[in-house]
């Protein structure tokens, strides 16, 4: 029997210090995601599953589980619609092992 673990279950093992109310990544213009981006690859390729596509085609970003890899920003090269900064000092993912 093959077991496939969901990403949410895995992130539960990680240690984070969430900067509540101050996401370090934002979608610049949500309309571009909803209307101009046909692939919405961020919703599949983010290794932490931070991006989800809603029924109406809009992309929702929740950065709490972010692993700070940079994938979403680099992969959005057709629209450059991701504003990406590091979290404030001390916040975000805190790798126990790395």
């Amino acid at each position: 029997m093959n077991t496939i673990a969901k990403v949410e279950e895995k992130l539960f093992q990680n240690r984070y210090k969430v900067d509540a109310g101050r996401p370090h990544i934002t979608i610049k213009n949500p309309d571009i995601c909803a209307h101009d981006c046909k692939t919405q690859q961020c919703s599949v390729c983010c290794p932490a599953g931070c991006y989800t596509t809603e029924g109406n085609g809009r992309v929702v970003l929740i950065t709490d589980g972010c692993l700070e890899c940079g994938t979403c920003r680099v992969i959005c090269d057709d629209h450059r619609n991701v504003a990406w900064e590091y979290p404030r000092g001390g916040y975000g993912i805190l790798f126990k092992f790395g």
Partner: protein
Amino acid sequence: MAEKFDAIVVGAGPSGNAAAYTLAKSGLKVLQLERGEYPGSKNVQGAILYSDALERIIPDFRDDAPLERHIIEQRMWVLDDESFVGTHYRSDEFNKPPYNRYTIIRAQFDKWFSQKVQEAGALLLCETTVSDLIMDGNRVVGVQTDRLGGSVYADIVILADGVNSVLARKAGFRPELNPGDVALAVKEIHFMPEETIQSRFNISGEAGVVIEMVGKITKGMMGTGFLYTNKESLTIGVGCMLSDFKKQKVSPNQLLEEMKNHPSIKPLIEGGEMKEYAAHLIPEGGYKAIPQIYGEGWMIVGDSGMFVNAVHREGSNLAMTTGRLAAETIIELAEKQKPFSARNLAAYREKLDASFVMKDLKKYRNMPGIFHRNPQFFTTYPELVNQAAHTMIKVDGIDKKTKEREIRNSFTHRRSLFGLMGDAFKMWRAFE
């Protein structure tokens, strides 16, 4: 007037620590800034430590560095869906000190390295994100942080801020990363008793094994998988070019999960307790992707400068070497009381060119492009090789000559004779 340092190093990974250590040891006044809670808390690596690069910085590192296992055996697996063809190289030569390379756990190792940096006299400030470089015309004169409430100044700023290097991009020193120049790797760490690891991998004491894998596990994307033995844990991961992830719309988590279920891999990690899931970008664009790495009052070291030899899975040793050479360039200029101008800092590039860093990267400069344009090396060939092994090894009453013909036909059927010759030529070009 804010405090002024001889040098500011942004980042406390292998390149930043190598630079800060070397500078502080020579007596320069060094400030190192790290955004994590502690050095290593933001850093991700497989991780293999190559002794040589660290030995040139801290010769007696083995006395107290947190090392996991010294590698005595390297396995290379080419996988199909249900099988693999592999080569194992194991030598007792690797089991005699001083050991050539080790597995490490970065959060622990980076903390240790940072301790050495501080003992050498550098001032480290953690939980401090550098938001901007402070410019005077085209010259970097300091950094703006989110914590000190102001600015810090230095004669030279070394950017050791990793693959995403927000600073180098903002300052225009480097363009945005291209999805074709970086690999996305995801990995997990699984804990299990030491004895289990020793018996599963046929090792004793602190000897270790690494497995590098190509083939079906990457679903046709250009990439590799890995499985490393630590003392009481295994790290397992897979990395592929980000451009391939994008094109094929593959979930990295799903990719890793399926790899863990491969019948040749699953028994090795069975029963382990997963304690962390991490992801990281690896700059794999090679020689042609290296940006300008020095200018008026600034230098770039490590991943930020794209210093990774993807072919040989080397990165942290290049990081440490670039950090050390950048520091040595600064020390030499300081001794002669010369300014840290772009013209004078060109000596850094010369040192790199004369070292294994640029020599190796230059040697493989064509590799990324060739593999990008020829995905068959990651798809068709692993399949064909596994089928060929299966055909030859299975005893089923068919004579060996017929089997050989069958194998030959399978290769020419899938790639044609022309294709095979072309591929051989491309492989030669890639490694020449």
